[in-house]
Structures are given as C-alpha cells and as structure tokens.
C-alpha cells in the first residue's frame, strides 16, 4: 500500500508496539501505526481512547515505555517537544499556538523571528516576515492582503490554516492536528478539511486526530481506530466504508443496544 509516500523503503513515521503507563494505568498498549508523506492518517477514538497520550508521545511531551518510534526508519526517543520539532514533527494544538491580539505576521514568526543586522542593531526583519506570511498563506489558499490583521479577528478555520502554514514553513514533515475541527461549525470544519488535504498535497504526512468519522472519512487515506489504549482497527480507505467506520468507532453492538434504548426513551 501507498508506495509513493515511502522513503528509503521505510515509512516516514512508524510506531511499533508502543505502550505507555501512568503508574499502574495502561494508557497505550501495543499501538502500531505508520504515516507516509503526502497522506492523511486519521486517528479515531472516543474520549479516553488514548488519542492525547499518543499525540504527546509523538510531540515529545511524554516518553513511551515500550515499543519503538521510527522516523525514516531510524529509531527515536524524543525527550522534549523541541526534539520532536527537530525531527520534523510539528503539533498544531487547537487554539494553543496563536496569540489572538498579535498580527498574522507576528504570530507566523513568533519564536522563530528572522533577523537582519548584527549585534545591538540586530532586528526583526519585518518586511520579509510580512511578505513570507502572505506567500505562505496564499499557498494554503488564503489571500491575506493585510498581514497586520490580528489573528483574533480571523475565523477558527483560518486560524488553523495559519498554524498549519507556519508548521510547514518551518520544515514540518509530519503534521499532527489535534481535533482541528471539533470546535468549529459545519462550514468552518469543511474549510479546515480542505487545508488538511492541501497540506498533504504539499508532501507532508498528516496525522488527523478526531472523534468524528464524518470529518475523517472524506480526507483520510487510512484510518486507525483507538479504543481504551489499543488499536482496534487499521484500514486503508479502499477497504472500508463510512458506515463501517462509524459503526466500528462506536463499538458496533454497543451502539445498536444504545440506539434501541434511546428509541425506547423517545417513544414513551
């Protein structure tokens, strides 16, 4: 499967039998999955399925206790978010990477400001920052004519686009999007899904974490289902229908029982 995304015969990012304990709580158990360049890998799971633990391992916040994490076939152990970023893994947290009162270009380069001049007159290269921010946003399909606009005045979807464009500009090869659509309305969620596709088209391996199979299905190339810290399903798009995904995610039989109960409640 997916030969175009493979580099040196190995996956861009590969997890094998990864597990993580918090005290005696088993947060992740024997999780294996892979991400290829230019593809969208969806990680689906309900609350408590282990999605956040998985993201935190990939982004270097937590360290895994067992198994291996490989980038381009090389085994890695990230000891900090900085390590993960150096390996090209960028995490876009929902609303946690933007300062609303700051302009688009200030946000775009926050923490990575380009400078010109030396010593005491070393200064933020504002012209370059504005120009680049505008160009990079254009590549995401957004025409920013005023990069001075505060990020807080952008819509939720556009804010995600700024964060995604920034991560790609700063060399992200794997982009982890943590519930990017969960706080958005239907239309805005559609906008973000389009940016996700756009990012994958630019050759980035996208990990799209969501609890909504209806958002995942149209953009995903393959789907990993998590439940109680375990992988309960891993399907390529051609092997699965939307209905199967929805059912599997909700726990199949459990959902049928629940539907039955709910119908009972409604009819009385």
């Amino acid at each position: 499967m997916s030969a175009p995304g493979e580099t040196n015969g190995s996956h861009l990012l590969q997890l094998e039998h990864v597990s993580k304990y918090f005290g005696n709580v088993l947060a992740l158990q024997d999780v294996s999955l892979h991400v290829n360049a230019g593809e969208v890998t969806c990680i689906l799971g309900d609350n408590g399925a282990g999605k956040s633990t998985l993201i935190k391992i990939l982004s270097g916040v937590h360290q895994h206790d067992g198994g291996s994490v490989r980038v381009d076939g090389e085994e890695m152990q990230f000891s900090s978010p900085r390590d993960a970023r150096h390996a090209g893994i960028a995490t876009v947290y929902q609303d946690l990477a933007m300062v609303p009162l700051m302009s688009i270009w200030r946000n775009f380069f926050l923490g990575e400001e380009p400078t010109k001049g030396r010593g005491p007159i070393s200064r933020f290269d504002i012209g370059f920052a504005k120009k680049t921010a505008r160009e990079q946003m254009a590549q995401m399909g957004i025409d920013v004519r005023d990069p001075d606009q505060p990020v807080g005045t952008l819509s939720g979807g556009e804010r995600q686009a700024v964060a995604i464009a920034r991560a790609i500009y700063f060399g992200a090869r794997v982009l982890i999007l943590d519930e990017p659509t969960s706080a958005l309305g239907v239309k805005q969620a559609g906008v973000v899904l389009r940016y996700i596709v756009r990012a994958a088209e630019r050759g980035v391996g996208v990990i799209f974490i969501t609890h909504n199979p209806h958002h995942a299905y149209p953009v995903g190339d393959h789907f990993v289902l998590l439940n109680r810290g375990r992988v309960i399903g891993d399907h390529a798009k051609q092997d699965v229908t939307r209905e199967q995904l929805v059912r599997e995610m909700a726990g199949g039989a459990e959902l049928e029982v629940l539907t039955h109960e709910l119908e009972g409640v409604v009819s009385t």
Partner: protein
Amino acid sequence: MTTADPTPVRLDERLASIGIVTRVLKRPDTGAFIGAVAVFVLFAITARQVNWAGDLGVWSSWINTAAYDGIVAVPVALLMIGGEFDLSSGVMIGSSGLLLGILTTHYHWGLWPAVVVCLLFGLAIGFLNGLTVVKTRLPSFIVTLGTFFMLRGINAGLTIKITGGVSINDIDQASGFSFAHKVFASTVWEKYGLSVATLWWLGLTVVAAWVLARTRFGNWIFGAGGDPVAARNVGVPVARTKILLFMATSTVAAFWGVMTAVGLRGMQSNEGVGREFEFIIAAVVGGCLLTGGYGSVIGAAFGAAIIGMAQIGIISSGWDSNWVYFFEGVVLVAAVMLNTAIRRRAERAR
C-alpha cells in the same frame, strides 16, 4: 479552489476600502494622543494665570513634570504588555536614592561607584521579582505588593537606624557630584528651564518603542503577555522575557532614584511611595491592556504628558493641588473607556 471562498476575499476588499483611518484608529496609542490634545485644550481654557499655549516656560514645566512619571512608565508599559505588574516600582525610587545617599554620605564612596551599585541593586530586585513570579506562578500583583512593603519597611527602618532621622542629606559632598549633577539633574535649555530628565525620557521612549516594534525581543513581549501558553508552545522563552522585563522596570526605577537624589541632593525615606500607580496610569492611559499582549510605549509617553499637564494645569487654574488626584482618576477611567471603544471600532471596521 479556496480563492473562490467568499469569506477572506470579502474581508480583504473591505479592508482595502477603509485604509488609513482604520490604520490610525487601530494603533493602541491613538486614544492617548487624542486625550493629551483634549487635556491641553482644557487647560488652555481654564489655566488663566499663565499663557498656557504660548509660553514655552509653561510647556517646559509640564514636560519636566511629565518626565518625572514618564521615565519609569516606559518599562512599566513594556512589563504590562508582557502581562505583568510591578507595584514596587515607586518605592524602588526611594530605595535606590537612599542607597546612594548612605553609600556617599555614611560610607564616603564616590558618587559614580555608588550609582553603579544602585543600578545593580535595581537589577537584583527586578530579578528576584521576576524569578518569584515565574517560579511560583503567583500573580505579580501579589508578589510585587510584597516587595513594595518590604522595601518600604527597609527604607524607613534603615534610614532611622543609620541617620537617626527620616532623610539623608548632603549627597553633594561626594566626589564626582558636579558631573553627575550635570548628567542627571541639570537644565538643558536655561531660558525655559527644560530639565535634562526630559532628554533621558525621550531617549528611553525611542529605544523602548524600537525594541517593542522592531526586535525579536519585542515580539516575545507581545507573545508572553498575549498568551504565555501559546508563546511557550512555539518556542518563546516566556520566563526569561518576563524576568528581563521585571529587571528593566526595577533598574529604571533605581536609575530614576539616582536622578532624584542627585537633583535634590538628598532623599526622604518615604520617597516614591504611591508613584507606582501613576506609572501604571500613564501606561494604561497609553493603551496598555491590563491583561497584557497589547499596548504602546509611545502611548505611555502621552499618558505621562497628560499627568504632567494635570499637575501644572490644575495649579495654574487656581485650583487646589489635591484635585490632581481626582483629575488623574477621571482621566484613567475615561481613557480606558475611550481606548476600548476605539479598539472595538477598529476591529469591527474590518
């Protein structure tokens, strides 16, 4: 395909048609500028005892007074944009001046070595303030309120213990005093009595405004104040930025303490107490948000100018000087309302 998306395109067209007015209104310091002009006009009407608008001597006197608040208001504004407060910035003036006095009169140091020690003392107190805020995650309001009262106690207690009184005098006996007086407390424009402090104020404002708008550190100040969690996530050294801002505030306050002590040739043990609020008023009137992440050093300079005009204008209008406090209170509330209204308008105009 997304260029066909109607939302961003419509936004841009509206922006292009609004242009320069919105651009000016969007600046955080616009409100303070309008306020300063309004206050100037007010006193041009009421201050009948002097030629308010036409006499450069009157201009000098309120600009001198403005410098008195404006110098420390510069780092206070930066600190506030960085999301923190420093309530110890007023009493620090007294601490530094008294330290200068004790070193020069009691221990007979030369003036310049004593100045260096005062500035180092400012750096150290600022570092402690910043470190405590960053490490404990307590609100800086509480931490620096603590520093304020500790320094206030030390100022009074040590002055009495060492001199037996409530002030230190005869700093002008120290070697190096005459040159220091020239640098810190002379008059640069004899004819109208403009003090050298106004040049320090101007210089400091220009440097700080440049740092804020044009350097990496300036971007970090906005980030650290606007959303420290987001800023840290993208790699801004938030703790370091905040500690440096606390250090700048205490050090500039200590510097102003030196200037005051040299100017007065002595120091009262209660000097500076209560001044911290005037610095904060100047910064807030200048457009700084109390919650951080937004503001302007140039605005703080207009804020200080308003306070300077109030102090001179109220006396020149023949009113009792106690009304200055009342006036500052009114200006503070009015300015915050004006700034908020302007900001909302500018944001809605997009």
